[in-house]
């Protein structure tokens, strides 16, 4: 039993890492039906930027600066990669453009920070704490708490602030929102900014546990993408559930079946969800009237 709980605990920690990154996909998809395929690079840039700042500001003070950095980064991606494609009603232009920007960001990061995996100093003690039968790292608790808090903050922003309401309105019906006087273009920029901001925040959150480097986002962002598909691209709750499912499936498979097949059940689940419920477990099936 203790083993099972330990596996679940580790699975939850890994799953929340995926969820935190997947959350960013969901934000931009809601407003513009586009995704930032450079989400992994936004994560890596956030973590590397934070790593550079941390010696001067300390871990906690560095976070707001990283948030500002991520916010600006998202706006740049939207302006350069997404808006031109959306303007000419290109269905795929934004895919290539965000991937291209991601590659550029990665190369820039490699030139500035090198391509070695770096150690990110942990703000919390690095020895595990005993909770009943299981052992967790303080940093893992911070990841779970931080990710939930971040999602909650974005939800509150969407529900309470005037800007957030504009985001929700745009998500529901972009044309109607436009007719109601909402500047939907700015709302889309905003959603990209918030999305990259959450990615950058996720970067500094997970960096002390994972390795930090220009390529740190590659594997994580891919897993997060699977999470977003499983959970549903339009649901905040969906990415949390999807992340937990994938993370726990990985650790349980690793232990009970084989560590060589660790990644397989998550991907099978992805295929099953796509064939049975393409909008994801928590996605809203919308009937498109043409």
């Amino acid at each position, binding site marked *: 039993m203790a083993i099972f709980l*330990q596996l679940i605990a580790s699975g939850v920690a890994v799953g929340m890492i995926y969820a935190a990154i997947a959350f960013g996909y969901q934000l931009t998809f809601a407003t513009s039906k586009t995704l930032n395929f450079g989400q992994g690079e936004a994560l890596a840039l956030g973590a590397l930027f934070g790593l550079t700042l941390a010696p001067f500001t300390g871990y906690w003070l560095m976070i707001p600066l990283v948030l500002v950095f991520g916010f600006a980064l998202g706006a740049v991606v939207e302006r350069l990669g997404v808006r031109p494609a959306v303007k000419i009603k290109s269905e795929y232009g934004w895919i290539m453009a965000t991937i291209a920007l991601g590659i550029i960001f990665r190369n820039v990061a490699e030139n500035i920070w*090198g391509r*070695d995996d770096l*150690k990110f100093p942990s703000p919390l003690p690095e020895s595990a704490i005993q909770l009943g039968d299981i*052992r967790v790292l303080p940093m893992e608790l911070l990841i779970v708490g931080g990710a939930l808090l971040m999602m909650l903050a974005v939800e509150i922003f969407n529900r309470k602030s005037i800007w957030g309401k504009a985001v929700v309105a745009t998500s529901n019906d972009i044309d109607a929102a436009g007719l109601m006087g909402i500047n939907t273009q700015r709302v889309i920029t905003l959603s990209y900014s918030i999305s990259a901001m959450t990615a950058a925040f996720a970067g500094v959150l997970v960096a002390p546990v994972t390795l930090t480097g220009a390529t740190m986002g590659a594997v994580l962002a891919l897993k997060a993408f699977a999470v977003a598909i499983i959970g549903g691209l339009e649901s905040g709750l969906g990415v949390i559930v999807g992340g937990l499912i994938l993370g726990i499936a990985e650790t349980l498979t690793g232990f009970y079946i084989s560590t060589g097949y660790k990644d397989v059940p998550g991907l099978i689940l992805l295929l099953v969800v796509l064939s049975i419920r393409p909008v994801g477990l928590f996605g809203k099936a919308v009937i498109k009237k043409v």
Partner: protein
Amino acid sequence: MGALVCATALGLMPAQAADPIKIGVTGPYTGGSSSMGVSMRDGARLAAAEINKAGGVLGRPLLLVERDDEAKNEVGAQVAQELINKEKVVATLGFINTGVALAAQRFYQEAEIPVFNNVATGTIITNQFKEPDYDANYVFRNSAYDVLQAGMMVDEALAQGHKKIAVLADSTNYGQLGREDIEKYLATKGVKPVAVEKFNIKDVDMTAQLLKAQQAGADVILAYGIGPELAQVSNGMAKLGWKVPMITSWPSSMQSFIDIAGPNGNGVIMPQTFIEDQTLPRRKSFLESYYKSYGVTKIPTPVAGAQGYDSVFILAAAIKQAGSTDGAKIRAALENLNERVEGVITTYEKPFSAKDHNAISRNMVVFGKVQDGKIVYAKPEDAKNAGVVRLKEKSSN
């Protein structure tokens, strides 16, 4: 890069009217295994500079043509073709990654140009073009190959009295070939590992692998992988509060292991051909010039730096003996090298023969131990004998 090549070329021009002898240097200078590649390259640069200062080889200076293979098999193959066909190198040194070596060295074999592995350890590397399938084998090596390391790791675990052995290996060519070597050697000792687990490059969480090993009652871990993931294994053990000895393949001496594992890495031991100690004058002068040239207090990956340095001297001696830059003649000279080449790892006396293309024999390899951010001798007797040059054992490979 361009400026650098120009500067080297210009610097040599006035003194040497003769054409330089071009030697390819290929390795990952960027990416996860770059600390090995860069140490190797920097060691090779030092050696080439020393040789050129002393008048070069055959009256011609050595010119290192450095190419980044990014630890990618396909890039390595491209680099090989560029070095052979465009740069017309006389020989090539390098290869950190076993997969890259296997993908790239066949171009040298076909072109009959010697290729000298100074870091990659896959056992199969020097056997890829072995007799009798091929008339001549152009692949040489001065690193401790996997069978040798796997044997040392297993023997050490058994000597320490461990009976229940868990094997953890990464899912790359390197890790899986190493795991095979460990399992084969264990079988000859009549021991079956209690757990054999796999992990991927960039894996974040090692809980499942470690719990399986723990549940199987393992009392020692043999891990085959490179620095960052080996560090994640150490960190994972600390997280689970499970402490058993860990014996790894050589890359836990990488700086990335030391940085990422921090105090959790202390006590991990691994086979090493070279430990940064200054007992011998040859080693002392090498370390001093390395530290001074690159402004560091420690070689990022000492083994790679030392092997890179030595490989240039061995190759230079062979070119001298061959009296030409013809590939077949250099290969023949390497296989019957008359000069004693004093390197920093050992003094190479007939390092190769027609059958044996591995310069390193088991008696040259010691166990290193991670201790507070440095690699030191794991055993007091090795530390005491640090000043003894361990020559190659006859017919050991």
